[in-house]
Every structure is written in C-alpha cells, then in structure tokens.
C-alpha cells in the first residue's frame, strides 16, 4: 500500500487530550518548620518589621510571602489563641511571626523588647512589663496550592494567604500556555496518534521492532493547515516532519545477524512475547529516539552532510524524511506520489485568506532548516503509541520537544511521564452549594484527596510502577508539556497490564 493510501485510510482516534499533571501537582511537597510568635504593641508594628528585616535579612530564595507577618487575636488559630492569650485579649497588641532561619532567642528578645506590649495592656497574666515572650509554632514552608489548603493551614497553624498565580508557576506550566497548546493539538491529535499506530504496525509486522510508533509534528505548519475550513482530507499529514517505528530487533550486534534477520519471513518478532533484555536492542532504537535522530539526520542532510543511514527505513519513515530534503519532494524516490504540500499551499492561496507560508516555496523542506531557526526538536510535538520509557522521556526533553502526547491506553509500567495512577472518574460531588471565593480550587483539593485515597486502595491491584512525570519537573532544566489522549471507547486493556518492556 502506498503512503498516500495509508494516510487516506487513517481512522482518527476519538477522544480528548488532557494534560498529564506534574509530579509537583500530583504529590505536593509540604514541609513544616518551627517559627516564633511574639506579642508586640500594635503601635510599633511597622517598626517591628523594619527592625526584624534589618537584623535578620530574609532569604530571597525562600520567599515566605504566603505567611502573614502579623495576626490579630481574632485571626489566630483556636489552639494558639488559648496558649498565647491568657487573660482578656487586648486591642493594643498584635502577634508577629518570626520565620526561619530562626535567630538566637536572646538577640531576638533584646531586639523586640522596645516593642513589648505595655504592662497594662498585656493579655498574659502577671508578666513583668516590657518583656517579650517567644512561642514556638509550626508553619508551612511552601505556599498553599489550593484555597482549601490555605484555609486548613490558617485554622491549624498560622494565617496563610492563597495566591492563585505565583505558586502554580513553580510547580506546573502556566495554565494559559497549557490550555492554548491543548486546544491547538486537540483537533488533529486523533489523526496523528492513529498514524503513530500505523507506523507501529509496520514496525511490528516487519519484525524489526515492537509495536511502538512516533509521529513528529510541527505545530506551526499544523496551525497553518488549520486555517482552511474545508475538509482536511489528508492535509493533517502535511504538518508531519518525521515518523519512526521501534527498531529494537534490527541492529546487528557484534557483526552477527540481527534478531529480525534471524527470523524467517515477515510477521511479528517472536521476541515480543517476553522481555529478554539481551535481545531488546537499546533505547536509541526506540521510536522516540529514532524520530529525534531522523529529525537530526534531516538537518544534517540539509547542511550537506550526507549521513550514513544505519538502519533501513520503512515506507512511512522514508516518505516523511524525504519531505525534509533540501531538494524538496518528488526527487527522492516517491516520484509517483505527489507531495501533499503543494496542494495545501494552492488551496489556501486561492481561498479567502492570503497567508504567508511558513516556508518560502512549495518545494522548501518541511523540516525547518538551521538557517530558519531549526534547532534540535525545538517547537515540535511528538505523538506516541505508548508512554515512553525513562530514557526516551529524558531524551525528549534533551531534544527540546514542545509537547508529547500518548494514549492513556499506552501507559507503561516502565514509563517516565505519568505522575499518578489512572483514577476512575470521581463523580461530581454534591458540594456545589459551597460558595467559596474559588470553589474550583476547593473541589480540586477534595478531588485530590479523594484520588490519593483511591490510589492507595488500588495500589495492590496495579502492577508496581513509579511515577516520574519527567516532562515537567522543577529540578530539570528542560521541560515539555505532557498530554494523555483519553479514548472515548476503550475496549483494549492498558499496555500497563501487558508484557513489561521499555517503549
């Protein structure tokens, strides 16, 4: 079957693209440390802050802006009120929080002594006037991620401020970016994932690899195609810059025959039934790594460095690689298959909108060259049949992909992207009558706690795996947006329950 025919026959997967939460979201990091509270005179409050900040400069790498610096009697958590206030609460005093790094107690007391409450207004019983009492309390070091958490901490520890903007930025991609990208990839994702399965089928049928495939898309080209309202036909494929299937059985180690050559005839390799590390090739033969290398080899060719192709390419791989040749389409083998690219350009040019083409002529390579800013896989999206292994997950970051999409059914116990187990949809609770300032966050919170409970309950029924959420971790320098594709009708079992291998 020729490539155009394969493309025409692609049945898009039906479903929705949803972001994979980051590990920071799925498992919020909460640390609690000691802090001091002291009662000071209300009149001197602003001077107290100045004195504290100049004597004990705050650590800018540890912003504690979520903690109120002062609390009135009425704002104190109940248990603190009973320990801090012995007699009648005084309207002349206020409580100040001293956060870590905690200064020496005597130095602190001396510093605060001028601001001690006057004896007559002291709410504690029979203290000598002008002295400072320090009480140790526990405070949360990280800002609250939900309003529910802020309320909980304010009631139990110390008044905490919820800022919807700042904390999220440090633990997850900006919501606007995430939803803009999600919206832009959602319409065609089903097509690319379906094609990834075709690529995977070729890899498996030919015996060179497992049934894993990758499709690399340039979202800029995709957006450009999307400007035509007409039926897309196979034009969705015009934004593809590379496809690659798994090839783990294709390498000839030590000059011997490869695993695929050992096998007589075509058809799935018998090695796919088990996991035998000695015949698994290596991660550079996995679909994602091969896709990144095909992009690289496309660029090397554009630069005039003919690269030695180490592994034979299948028809789909060859076709999309040829679209990135400097000489343009048609010149490299598939003469009988007109490139869909020129058609796309003609169509839109005759249409209502006159749009500047991303490339300056219809024979320009699809893959942006280095002169045009092409660098590794920057600004490209990759669609996979399976959750990539840890090695490939980091490889996709080092290749600087913009986004990665895989079907939820393709989760792997060896995967590097998921951040938590799949949870059965939580029924919308009847808590909608709760009218908080931000009910969404509270719901989030409840749902999260619910999920945690459920994931613990289900822990035994799932194969053991770890959740790395490598696509967006605060510790790593490079990050990508991660998405799962949730199919409408899922009849097949999750790949997590099949043979455990590295995808």
């Amino acid at each position, binding site marked *: 079957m020729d490539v155009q025919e394969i493309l025409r026959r692609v049945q898009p997967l039906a479903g929705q693209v949803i972001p994979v939460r980051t590990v920071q979201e799925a498992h919020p990091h909460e640390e609690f440390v000691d802090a001091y509270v002291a009662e000071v005179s209300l009149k001197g409050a602003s001077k107290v802050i100045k004195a504290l900040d100049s004597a004990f400069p705050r650590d800018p790498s540890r912003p504690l802006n979520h903690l109120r610096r002062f609390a009135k009697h009425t704002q104190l958590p109940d248990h603190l009120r009973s320990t801090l206030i012995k007699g009648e609460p005084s309207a002349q005093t206020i409580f100040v929080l001293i956060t870590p790094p905690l200064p020496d107690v005597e130095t602190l007391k001396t510093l605060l002594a001028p601001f001690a409450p006057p004896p007559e207004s002291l709410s504690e019983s029979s203290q000598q006037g002008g002295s400072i009492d320090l009480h140790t309390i526990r405070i949360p070091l990280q800002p609250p991620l939900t309003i529910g958490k802020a309320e909980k901490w304010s009631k139990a520890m110390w008044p905490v401020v919820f800022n919807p903007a700042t904390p999220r930025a440090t633990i997850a991609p900006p919501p606007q970016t995430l939803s803009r990208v999600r919206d832009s990839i959602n319409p065609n994702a089903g097509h690319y994932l379906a094609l990834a399965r075709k690529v995977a089928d070729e890899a498996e049928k030919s015996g060179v690899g497992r049934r894993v495939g990758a499709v690399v898309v340039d979202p800029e080209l995709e957006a450009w195609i999307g400007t035509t309202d007409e039926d897309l036909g196979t034009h969705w494929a015009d934004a593809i810059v590379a496809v690659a299937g798994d090839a783990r059985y294709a*390498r000839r*180690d030590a000059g011997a025959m490869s695993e695929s050559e050992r096998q007589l005839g075509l058809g799935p390799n018998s090695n796919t039934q088990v996991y035998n590390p000695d015949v698994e*090739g290596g991660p550079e033969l996995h679909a994602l790594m091969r896709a990144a290398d095909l992009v690289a080899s496309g660029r090397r060719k554009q630069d005039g460095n003919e690269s030695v192709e180490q592994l034979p390419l299948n028809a789909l791989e060859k076709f999309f690689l040829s679209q990135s040749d400097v000489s343009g389409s048609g010149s490299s083998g598939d003469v009988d298959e007109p490139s869909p690219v020129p058609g796309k350009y003609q169509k839109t040019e005759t249409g209502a909108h006159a749009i500047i083409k991303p490339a300056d002529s219809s024979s320009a390579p699809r893959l942006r060259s280095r002169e045009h800013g092409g660098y590794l896989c920057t600004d490209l999206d990759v669609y996979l049949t399976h959750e990539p292994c840890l090695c490939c997950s980091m490889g996709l970051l080092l290749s600087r992909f913009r986004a990665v999409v895989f079907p939820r059914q393709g989760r792997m116990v060896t995967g590097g992207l998921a951040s938590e187990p799949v949870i059965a949809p939580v029924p919308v609770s009847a808590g909608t009558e709760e009218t908080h300032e931000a009910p969404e966050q509270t719901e989030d919170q409840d749902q999260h706690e619910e999920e945690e409970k459920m994931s613990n309950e289900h822990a035994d029924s799932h194969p053991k795996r770890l959740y790395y959420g490598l696509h967006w971790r605060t510790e790593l320098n490079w990050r990508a947006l991660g998405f799962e594709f949730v199919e409408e009708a899922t009849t097949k079992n999750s790949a997590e329950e099949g043979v455990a291998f*590295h995808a």
Partner: protein
Amino acid sequence: MSAIEQEDSRHGYFMKQALLMGEKALETGETPVGCVLVYDNQIVGSGMNDTNRSMNGTRHAEFIAIQEMLRSYPKSTLRSTDLYVTVEPCVMCASALRQYQIRAVYFGCGNERFGGTGSILSLHSDFSIDPPYTVYSGLFSKEAVMLLRRFYIQENEKAPRPRPKKNRELNTRFDDIVESYNHTA
C-alpha cells in the same frame, strides 16, 4: 570508597582515559564529557559527547561508547562491563545504562542539573524491570569539573541566541560549594 585511594589504581587509569575523551570533546566544540567501557580489564568502547556535530541532543558519550562496543561484542557482555565517565550520567543515560544492564558506573563529578544516578533521580537503584547497578563517584572529580568550566567560559555559537561571555574568567578554585552546570552528560 575513597577517591584518593583509587586515583592511582586501575580505576584511576580508566578514568584518565575517560578524561582524555573529554579533552577531545572540548577540542571539537562538544560538551567535554568522556567515557570508556571496560570489559575484562580492557577498554571495549569509548565515547564523547556528540550532540553538536550530530545535531541530536541525545548523542551523549555513553551512547557513543555503547554503540562502539556493540560493533564487536554482543549486548549480553554489558552485564560484565563497567563504565568510567567524567560526569554523572544524566537521567537519560542512567536509564539507558540500566536497560543495557551495565554492571557498575564510576563517575567523576556530580551533575546537579540532570544527574540520574543520585543527584536528581536514582535510576540505578529505583524499582525497574532491569537489575540495579552500583555507582561510585568522586574519581578525578576536579579534573572533570575543570573540563566543564573551560567549556562553559566559551560562547556557544550554535545556540539560537548565543550569550556573550567576554568577561568571564576561568574559575580555578574548589570550595565546598556545589558545582552546578547546565551540562548534559
């Protein structure tokens, strides 16, 4: 294991060979990370970072060395093979080495940005379907750091937006501060 004890030993010899690969990388404008694979007391593969030349961000020294080794040895040999690498393997390489069932990894300096064998993640020992491997660190770590420093005071003309670094000076001090580099070993 004490690093000083090891520097004269055969471990030291192999790490010096890895450092030489790192030097070669520096000469050719690659991030100076080098490694050698040792099987049966012999170097059976060596590699240096190759990301700039290949225009492929995943072509780290470890992959190059494994590729070279597999031209002459079957994959199963890696189970009795040790890796000497100047910088802690990154998350990608740490997982790859596990999948390749390496026996042990000796590295020079840590990798606070991407390290996959202790610094950021511990993929050598986490749960996985492949057996864990042992990691030893600290062998010639200063030499490994100096290679990186010499590289990072240069400008990266290949980057989309090269940053001018005219006024940078090579830092030759070794305080107890944690080395933090943007490198990807």
